């Protein structure tokens, strides 16, 4: 997967800087990294923009000489903290990749139980492992960039990496999913009597779930000016229970409900 110097790409005759990048997984399903290698028709173009030096899911070679580190997963163990701090030292830019890295993701649901030992017993039974409360990557080390989503949207990552290579500023939507959902001319889930967090969740997924008739669960976290309190009131007035509302808001850890 490593390319030689001669492969350096140019744009309008200007050679592009080809950063060395590395991917690392912590407590996660590795689904975000899988997304990265999923889009075969653009994969080679993507790989020619960067030099991947560490990507367990896609290659065997390993190197600590990287500039950009993509971190997938949340942090739940002491050895993870140690490993993450070492990566932070090596990397110039550290990117939180996906909901787990950004907010703790689905994993952080366990933090809601008072007794984490009880949780561990329920999950691992007679095969306990060392795992504590879930933390987002940003709660352990400084993060330079967040790429949202569960999973991440490959097209969005490609655009971000391309902008990095071109030296353009990175722009992610601050507005909510509704904007994309309307552009896709979907029928509003609320018209169908379904709950949806589209009005308060950050866009960028091209209203992935509502396009398939499923309400948004807020995996990308709150939009920049999300009116969460009024949204809760609306959902209540529309007849959704406190439980339904909290289940959605709590699911990925982007919305602070505690």
């Amino acid at each position: 997967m490593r390319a030689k110097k001669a492969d350096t790409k140019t744009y309008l005759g200007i050679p592009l800087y080809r950063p060395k990048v590395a991917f690392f997984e912590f407590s996660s399903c590795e689904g975000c990294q899988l997304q990265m290698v999923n889009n075969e028709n653009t994969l080679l173009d993507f790989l020619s923009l960067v030099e991947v030096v560490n990507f367990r899911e896609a290659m065997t070679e390993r190197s600590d000489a990287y500039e950009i580190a993509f971190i997938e997963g949340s942090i739940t163990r002491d050895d993870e903290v140690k490993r993450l701090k070492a990566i932070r030292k090596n990397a110039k830019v550290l990117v939180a990749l996906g909901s787990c890295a950004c907010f703790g993701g689905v994993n952080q649901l366990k933090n809601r139980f008072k007794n984490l030992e009880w949780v561990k017993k329920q999950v691992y039974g007679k095969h306990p492992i060392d795992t504590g409360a879930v933390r987002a990557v940003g709660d352990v080390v400084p993060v330079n960039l967040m790429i949202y989503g569960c999973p991440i949207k490959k097209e969005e990552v490609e655009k971000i990496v391309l902008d990095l290579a071109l030296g353009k500023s990175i722009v992610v939507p601050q507005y909510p999913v509704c904007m994309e959902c309307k552009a896709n001319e979907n029928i509003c889930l609320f018209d169908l009597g379904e709950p949806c967090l589209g009005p308060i969740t950050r866009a960028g997924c091209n209203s992935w779930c509502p396009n398939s008739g499923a309400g948004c669960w807020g995996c990308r976290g709150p939009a920049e000016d999300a009116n969460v309190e009024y949204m809760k009131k609306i959902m209540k007035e529309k007849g959704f229970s406190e439980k339904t509302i909290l289940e959605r808001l709590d699911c990925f850890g982007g919305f602070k409900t505690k």
Partner: protein
Amino acid sequence: MIFRVFEKKELKNFFEVLTVHNRIVGPVEAGRDKKNNPIYSFTEVSDFNNIKLDYTTTKLPAKRYFLPFHEDLSTFRIDNGDWQKTIDYNANQPLIFFGLHPCDINALNKLDKVLLHSVYPMPYYAAKRKNMFIIGIDCVPQPFCFCRSMGSDTALHGFDMFITDLGAKFFVEILTDTAYNFLKNIKKEEPREKDHVLYMKAVSERNKKFTTKVDTTDLAKILDMEFQSEVWKQWGDKCLACGTCSNACPTCYCYGVEETVDIDLKGARKTKMLHSCNLIDFAEVAGGHNFRAERHSRLKYRYYHKHRGFVEAFEESLCVGCGRCGESCLSGIKVPEVIASVRGGKVK
């Protein structure tokens, strides 16, 4: 102006004539809501039976056919350090709109003032607008419509022909020679006195159904006075800043432009995206400064553009009173209530 009447069954024949060489957009049933009421939308139709001419209103306007949500303004091919620019107005074929209500025709007329007849017309809009054939049709006013207050309940121009249901027949007003020539293909006749009576009866029946009113007397001036009114803050507290009102609006035309490079580095594009002044990103400028960082100030400016700024420039409101924004707003922010609260000094 030329008037004709024709038997109702002739409309299907007329559709068949048009569909031979043209793409037709009309109101169809897109689904049902939880109360089993139909949800209508404008879409391309090839079968006359799918068109619902008795539709109430569509959730979204037909805007995507003349102001697409996303549109490439220009594309670039890049070869060996050189580049080639291509501009496409994306209007390769005429489009027939089969059954637009007066509010939506008036919306186009208002957009024309900005995008067609201004100092700098927008060619992407003009190319599409000049390639439209519009068949208007009378509506049944809904409880949320207030087009009457905005002077948009009847369309005087901006269409090719306009049909009104007279029971057994359609009454048609012919405005262009294109429409006249197309209509040569179906059986029709000159309206007689009894058709005139039926037409006037239909009009007065429709008039009785307008229930929602907005007091627009001196509105531009009153908005000026009430710029600091507390009510804006109260509406702002409810606003979700989701942009749905703008997307549901047939006259919201504000946009942003983004330049992107293709991942293979062999192409690039400049893309226009319809935006909304209610979005937090809307008024963000270089350096991360945002001169409308608060929801209430953004919501207020949307009202000022519609009901004050446009009035000052064109002596009419930019709002046609279709009521779509209020119907699609989850927070229930509706134009008649917002205007009433500004006039009355409090939110009911």
